[in-house]
């Protein structure tokens, strides 16, 4: 009876308690790591934020047009603060992953491994998106100013379309990099883009034939000198 008690009841309980203690210590270790990560992350964020402010990082971002975009989207109060938050996020994430590794379970090991394999893709997608935002802003503004100076009535539309297409390309490229429904995205983009072009072609063909003809004539036929045209020299 005693042997049975020892083997059937106490031994499993002892093992359970050992496992519980081991798990609990791992959990405490994880919690300590996360807590440490939070504290160090917060400190790093403050240091990075203040350092970048001293280095006039916000001014540089304003020049590139990123600052106003960040403000407009409400992502952060400034670029240097956002950079601080990114550093904080990386530290907290690292702490979390370190904690998961410390748990030594196959599931967490596998999760950490997969995360590190995915990280380059994540960073590449982030870079593609940021470059896309910058290029779309620059080209959009270029198109806007050129169209206004050329006296085109739909300057804002042209600018918005320029930005839209550049951003769409960037997002498709970023999602492709992340491997999210790669085929679906490419097909969707092709259908959307093709659809827009087809719709524009049909609309132009049916509704604005005269407009298209006039436009092409104005572009390729030599223009007679309009009455009242400027002959002034600006310089």
């Amino acid at each position, binding site marked *: 009876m005693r042997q049975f008690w020892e083997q059937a009841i106490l031994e499993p309980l002892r093992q359970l308690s050992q496992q519980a203690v081991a798990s609990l210590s791992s959990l405490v270790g994880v919690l300590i790591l996360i807590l440490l990560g939070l504290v160090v992350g917060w400190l790093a964020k403050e240091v990075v934020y203040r350092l970048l402010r001293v280095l*006039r990082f916000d*001014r540089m971002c*304003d*020049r590139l*047009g990123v600052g*106003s975009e960040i403000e407009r989207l409400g992502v952060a109060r400034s670029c240097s603060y956002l950079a601080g938050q990114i550093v904080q996020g990386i530290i907290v994430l690292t702490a979390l992953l370190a904690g998961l590794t410390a748990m030594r379970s196959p599931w967490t090991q596998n999760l950490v491994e997969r995360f590190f394999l995915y990280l380059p893709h994540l960073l590449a997608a982030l870079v593609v998106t940021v470059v896309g935002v910058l290029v779309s802003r*620059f080209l959009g*503004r*270029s198109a*806007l*100013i*050129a*169209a*206004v*100076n050329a*006296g085109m*009535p739909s*300057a*804002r539309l042209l600018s918005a379309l320029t930005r839209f297409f550049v951003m769409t390309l960037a997002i498709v490229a970023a999602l492709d990099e992340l491997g999210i429904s790669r085929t679906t995205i490419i097909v969707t983009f092709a259908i959307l883009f093709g659809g827009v072009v087809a719709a524009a072609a049909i609309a132009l063909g049916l509704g604005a034939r005269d407009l298209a003809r006039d436009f092409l004539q104005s572009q390729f036929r030599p223009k007679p000198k309009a009455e*009242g*045209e*400027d*002959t*002034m*020299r*600006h*310089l």
Partner: protein
Amino acid sequence: MAEEILSDQARRQVTALGHLDILVGVPSCNNARTIGHVVQAAQAGLLKYFPDQRALIVNSDGSSNDGTREAVLSTHLDTQSLMLVSHPLYPVHRFATPYHGVPGKGSAFRTLFRIAEIAQARAVAVVDADLRSITPEWFDLLLRPVLDAEFDYVAPYYKRHKYDGTITNSIIYPLTRALYGRRVRQPIGGDFGISGRLARRFLTRDVWSTDVARYGIDIWMTTTAIAERFRVCQSYLGAKIHDVKDPGSDLSAMLVQVVGSVFSLMETYEKAWCNVVGSEPAPLFGFAFEVGLEPVSINVPRMLAAFWQGCHDLLPIYERVISPVHLKVLLARAALPAEQFVLPDELWAKLVYGFALAYHRRVIDRQHLVKSLTPLYLGWVASFARQTENETAAQVEERIEKLCLIYEQLKSTLISQWSLRTKDARSEL
């Protein structure tokens, strides 16, 4: 060691000539129709006014393919007093059309100044190859102040139609005058005389491969001469009539090249202009005779339409560049009916200073910034044309003088804002 711009052959040719008193430079690029007349005028001017001086006429050509060189050679000049050289034309010169119509003008000037340096010329006169109104007297007027009165830089002073040269009248002249304190009426005239001393100084500068040399060489020379305290004067040349090669050239590109150069030079010569108050006239040589001017037509409704569109479509850019107070006033003006529209000179000067500050602080891409000034500039021209419709040339000149004084009065605000680099600083100007 500085890069040698002259070929070995050209250098040997110049060295063989020995010491020169005068060098006349004619930069060209496809000017076969007019260059013969310009070279003949130069030869006649040198013979008439400087018969006892050793002089050389140099045509620096930038890869003409219309027979420009043949046109120069057919002028039957004494080969001892004529030299043909080529200035390098880099790819950028072929792709972009500079406002002055001579690709590689900076390279041409550098070539001419280098020849002047080797030949130890005392005075250099440079004239455009597309001039139709040039006379032999121009060379006396451009060279005499250097040779006899020891001036270093002789700027041209032309008689122009009241609607001719509106960028010069509304921005370049008032701004240069207010900044550097010298009243040089045509700071980007194109024809000028300089001393050998100043030519050597120009050669030492590291600008010859920059955009300043490519597109803003005229304003750079004028600004450098004034800011570095060389003796500057003006000579009255009458009317400037020349072949306009590209009358429909892009206005915004012109603004980028000229206004962008002025804004850029504000950074180079920050110390030179920050302590200048008011302005002094630059001495004027020559008799200011009356001349007939070519008629100029101006399309005010089209300019106003461009102004209104700019105020509407470029508002997000203006919000970043112009102070809220002035933007409000500008938009209120833009909302007025066409017949009541006036852009006050004070507001205009504040706008120009605001753009200069935004350029300095790199609020947005610099090309975008200066290009976005185009609709506002057209608004000012439309307003100016309305106000001066029935005014004489003298009355218009008085009006420009008043505009210049406003620029000078507002300069203190510009100075106080210049060193503030934060984006909040725009609220003041």
